[in-house]
């Protein structure tokens, strides 16, 4: 048993089969059967239909239905690209790195199936620059796949040509935003692009492009091999499948845990994570890294699926749960997060560039003991001017720490200015 909710791992399979990163082990365990089945027995449209019916939603954070995204590629389009988003940079998220390092062939296989489904012959995996080390491991897996004839001119011995290249960014959180990623991959500054046109119409090199997260790709082989019904036995009606939950902060056993969607937060923190060290209580949890609205302790029985997390005013996103215990100074935590977004704002649009700068200044004033009640009231005003006015989601995310911490812990701000 992987845990009380899952017999064996579907994504983090290296936890059951330690050497699965080796292609021979992966193959002997049914690896690349999904790609074989797709190439030899299915039409591309059937693959798209299966992924649509599975209910798989993007695991990078947005939760957009994957099959629907694939179906946006115009029929008969030439020069289609698949780009795998491995820019994993959201603080608290470390699942894609583990998948690429320990179960790389499942990611490659998923991307290859996606390529066949949309008629792409080239796949790029775009990783953040700091993944230079992990990409050495991933490149080995790619080389093995070429040697075995899984990738190349005749993928799996068919007449389908498929190339897969790795590409490293160079240190910019914004490149996780898919259009900024495309600019970066084309050799430009990682500025987000305006939409429309959407990447499915004009993406990489202005060609139709599908961009999917690493974990999303790792879900695909199972759907093709075992079928839609098998996949839908995990998770809920609207949030199907399993998900890797990155657990960090104040827990005894931080790490990546795979669960079907819909398991309560409490199970992740208390059972899998072993609870909070030294018997302390949870003060708040950030469910999707620093971009998400923190939720206080009384929400820990919420099921971890897209709908339930939205219903409590937050989001599931990339499912990166950062736990803060009762000793955490929330104003300190919020300032740290604002510092992050200020550092990572790309500078393209003024609401984000200037907004994060002003937020940072006000936090500094409050935290250094020079703040006033007016400063506390200034924070939501700055947020209001940013919200809905920024070019891409980064500016919106930057307001999350401010909004949620003021909503739940305003008294902690007041203590700072009363001191």
């Amino acid at each position: 048993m992987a845990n009380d909710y899952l017999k064996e791992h579907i994504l983090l399979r290296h936890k059951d089969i330690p050497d699965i990163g080796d292609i021979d082990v992966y193959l002997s365990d049914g690896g690349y059967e999904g790609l074989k089945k797709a190439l030899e027995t299915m039409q591309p449209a059937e693959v798209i239909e299966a992924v649509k019916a599975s209910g798989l939603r993007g695991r990078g954070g947005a939760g957009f239905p994957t099959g629907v995204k694939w179906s946006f590629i115009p029929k008969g389009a030439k020069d289609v690209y698949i780009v795998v988003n491995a820019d994993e940079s959201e603080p608290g998220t470390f699942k894609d790195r583990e998948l690429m390092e320990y179960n790389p062939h499942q990611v490659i296989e998923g991307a290859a199936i996606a390529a066949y489904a949309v008629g792409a012959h080239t796949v790029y995996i775009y990783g953040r620059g700091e993944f230079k080390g992990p990409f050495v491991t991933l490149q080995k897996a790619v080389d093995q796949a070429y040697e075995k004839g899984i990738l190349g001119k005749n993928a799996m011995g068919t007449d389908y040509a498929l190339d897969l290249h790795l590409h490293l960014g160079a240190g910019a959180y914004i490149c996780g935003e898919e259009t900024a990623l495309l600019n970066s991959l084309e050799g430009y500054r990682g500025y987000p692009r305006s939409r429309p046109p959407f990447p499915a119409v004009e993406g990489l090199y202005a060609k139709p492009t599908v961009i999917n997260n690493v974990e999303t790709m790792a879900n695909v082989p199972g759907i093709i091999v075992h079928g839609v019904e098998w996949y839908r036995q995990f998770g809920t009606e609207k949030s199907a499948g399993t998900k890797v939950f990155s657990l960090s902060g104040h827990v005894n056993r931080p790490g990546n845990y795979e669960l079907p969607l819909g398991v309560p937060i409490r199970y992740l923190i208390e059972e899998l994570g072993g609870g909070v060290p030294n018997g302390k209580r949870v003060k708040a949890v950030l469910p999707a890294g620093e971009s998400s609205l923190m939720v206080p302790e009384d929400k820990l029985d919420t099921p971890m699926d897209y709908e339930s997390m939205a219903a409590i005013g937050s989001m599931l996103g990339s499912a990166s749960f950062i736990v803060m215990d009762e000793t955490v100074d929330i104003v300190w935590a919020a300032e740290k997060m604002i510092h992050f977004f200020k550092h990572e704002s790309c500078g393209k649009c003024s609401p984000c560039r200037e907004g994060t700068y002003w937020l940072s200044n006000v936090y500094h004033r409050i935290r250094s003991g020079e703040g006033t009640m007016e400063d506390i009231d200034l924070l939501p005003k700055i947020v209001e001017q940013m919200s809905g006015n920024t070019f891409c989601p980064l500016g919106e995310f930057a307001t999350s720490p401010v909004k949620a911490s003021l909503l739940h812990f305003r008294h902690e701000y007041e203590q700072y200015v009363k001191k």
Partner: protein
Amino acid sequence: MWSEAEQRELEEILKKYPTKRSALLPALYLAQREKNWLDDDDIEAVAEALDVPVTDVHAVVGFYTLFRREPTGKHMIHVCTDLPCALRGAEDFYLRLTERLGLPPEGGTTEDGMFTLEAVPCLAACDKAPMCQIDLQYYENLTDEMIDTVLAQLRAEARQKTEA
């Protein structure tokens, strides 16, 4: 400025993309590899090799944090001090390290030119804090003793190299 081996490597990189410009980040990494930073000649060489205007290359270099325009130590040490790591003591770990390396709180390069220390945002290893990345390698679940041992080893290796 490119060695023969680098020239060959660059040609291999270019094969991966339909446009030369797409090779810009990989080419900059290649140009930066030997001395850990990019001088004006490196930037011009990259611009020329890829037919990209020099000013464009400067603009790209300035955007990304992993390209450096000033000399650094032999090894780059990046310690993550972002929120998840900070909750597990990474800020104090980093500050103690600056002190032991004789550096100010904002980090910098050690006197012997061996290390450049920086506090950086998230490196996607939040469950194993305190952690750092030295060049390519991740070092996780660190204690002061562990990082000191790693740095001493790197120093010893450098000494062996100069003696040999």
